[in-house]
């Protein structure tokens, strides 16, 4: 390990002097964290237009219930079916409700009363949530009606408990996973750049004519980046806890003790990239080639069960998730 101390000290001096690296490692992740932290994945208050031909107390009550879910806001009443369709096509409202003129009459006569609900299917998360909310409202309404008439009470009732995230806060789901992804990006790219930069500028060649040992070069260069990535982890975990109030129920110590293992594997990935890439541009592209699949297949973006591959293959694909978001997520969410 001849030359390790020299490499290590030099690398730290360079790292602290390089605005780009510090910006990339510390400012951009914080920025992204804040961006993701304010996102609410639950599509609430979806603009809704209504064409109510019934104009009765019953139809009014149904619409109120739609609004009560807080998933939908009635933004306008329109006078025709054509106007409803226009509202959806123009993107003004993703949901449109039409209540036919015989709605109240049918209810009163004990016949089936129909309600048309049109949903803009081009935005999947909005569409599924609107659909679920609409189904719920209508089911509830129908059930209530039946029960009132028969004088009975429902005999089965579900008591769902949302573990780990009782309030269904998006931040509690998004941020722990995001931490792993931010670390994946900066860890891999920073370490790949650190070595490729030396090759690009010819300094690697200069090093190779000195008696410095190759191991000292690699370890001396990567150790400061391990420190930087670790600092980044602590910074964003602190932001998550204190700025976004994501509770840490698991063992923080264990998280802090185990995460360097993950960081080392990221730096090693960067090292692998730097062994092939000649320029920083190339390194960037190769690192992306590694990281995009690992993020996309991690379960953070798509549910793991929906991956169109065999279970065996699925296991191999989920390395990033197995080693990252769930580790962070469950460490943070689970009690003890």
């Amino acid at each position, binding site marked *: 390990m001849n*030359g390790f101390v020299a490499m290590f000290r030099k690398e730290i001096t360079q790292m602290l002097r390089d605005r780009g690296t510090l910006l990339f490692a510390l400012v951009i992740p914080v920025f992204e964290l804040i961006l993701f932290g304010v996102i609410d994945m639950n599509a609430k208050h979806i603009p809704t237009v209504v064409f109510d031909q019934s104009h009765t107390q019953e139809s009014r009550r149904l619409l109120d219930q739609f609004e009560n879910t807080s998933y939908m806001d009635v933004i306008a009443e329109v006078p025709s079916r054509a106007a409803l369709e226009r509202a959806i096509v123009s993107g003004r409202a993703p949901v449109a409700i039409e209540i036919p003129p015989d709605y109240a009459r049918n209810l009163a006569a004990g016949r089936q009363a129909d309600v048309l609900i049109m949903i803009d299917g081009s935005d999947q998360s909005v569409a599924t949530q609107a659909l679920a909310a609409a189904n719920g409202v209508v089911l509830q309404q129908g059930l209530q009606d039946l029960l009132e008439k028969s004088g009975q009470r429902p005999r089965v009732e579900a008591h769902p408990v949302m573990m780990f995230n009782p309030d269904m806060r998006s931040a509690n789901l998004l941020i722990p996973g995001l931490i792993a992804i931010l670390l994946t990006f900066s860890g891999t790219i920073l370490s790949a750049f650190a070595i490729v930069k030396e090759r690009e500028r010819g300094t690697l060649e200069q090093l190779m004519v000195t*008696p*410095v040992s190759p191991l000292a070069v690699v370890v001396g260069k990567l150790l400061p980046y391990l420190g930087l990535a670790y600092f980044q982890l602590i910074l964003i975990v602190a932001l998550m806890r204190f700025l976004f109030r994501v509770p840490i129920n698991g063992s923080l110590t264990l998280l802090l003790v185990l995460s360097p293992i993950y960081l080392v594997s990221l730096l090693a990935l960067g090292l692998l990239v730097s062994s092939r890439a000649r320029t920083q541009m190339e390194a960037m592209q190769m690192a992306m080639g590694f990281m995009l699949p690992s993020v996309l297949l991690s379960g953070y973006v798509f549910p793991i069960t929906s991956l169109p591959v065999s279970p065996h293959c699925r296991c191999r694909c989920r390395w990033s998730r197995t080693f990252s978001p769930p580790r962070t997520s469950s460490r943070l969410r689970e009690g003890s």
Partner: protein
Amino acid sequence: MNGEIGVDVQGVTKDFGSVRALEDVTLQVPRGEIFGLLGPNGSGKSTLIRILCGLLVPTAGRATVDGLDVEREGEQVRQHIGYVSQAFSLYRDLTVDENLDFFSSIYRLQGADRKERIEWVINLAHLGPYRDRLAGVLSGGWRQRLALAAALMHRPRVLFLDEPTAGIDPVARRELWDLLFELAAGGVTMFVTTHYMDEAERCGTVAYLYMSRLIVSGRPQALKALPEVTPEGTRRVEAACEEGVAKLMTSARTLPYVHAATIFGTSLHLLIDANVSDQKVEQDLQAFGITDVKVSPIEPSLEDVFVRLTETRGREIEAARPQVVQV
């Protein structure tokens, strides 16, 4: 272990894929000598230096530096060599001091020894006023001195300098060469590539690479005396005039006894038949209307030597090479 040979190259060939960068190169540099390697762009000079520094492995042949095999004993070779590459390759985002500090600690210098050595190279390279400057903002000449200073840090026994004076002003060049002489006097073997003939003249031995082959190697005086350079029955003269050297050349080339004419600054170097006198040449040139021309005998310069040798030996190499160059 050979005590007197600083660098020994035996039949070294280097291929990069289908490109042959060096072909069967053999040369020796005595210890403590300044060896100058010349040759056109792309002739393989940097490649040879990189092989000797252990950065490239030769395709065939072997080389020793300071008695150590560059392939098998690379570890020890690296303890004793300094390398200044053609392109600046120190850390641009570190200051002069930080760069030198880094290299001194790579070479395991410690404590007072280290301080002393850093001061020594700073004084040698006159870097004193620039100690706190970032290497990246230094001008070309100062960068070069910094690279040299870093390469001297561990008092190497063999120093490889790849075009150390490219882009440096004449005064700095002279200073650098004075420094090289000083080091050589201290027993350091110096392996220098250059495109400057005046620098070649200062070398103990010069060699010329042409199309990956070594076409000549020897002391400058010996090369000038080569019979091929001034073939039997010819001699070299210089024709000097105040102005119109271009006209002088076109005129001279029409004379039947002139074999070659090359412009050197404001004068003309001619290779003429040995039996033609200076006066005769002078009169013939004056007949073209150039009245102030003076003709005097000269010995060939190194440039004459290399130009002449590329014409003779170089043509042979080109002829011998199979013409399958296709892109």
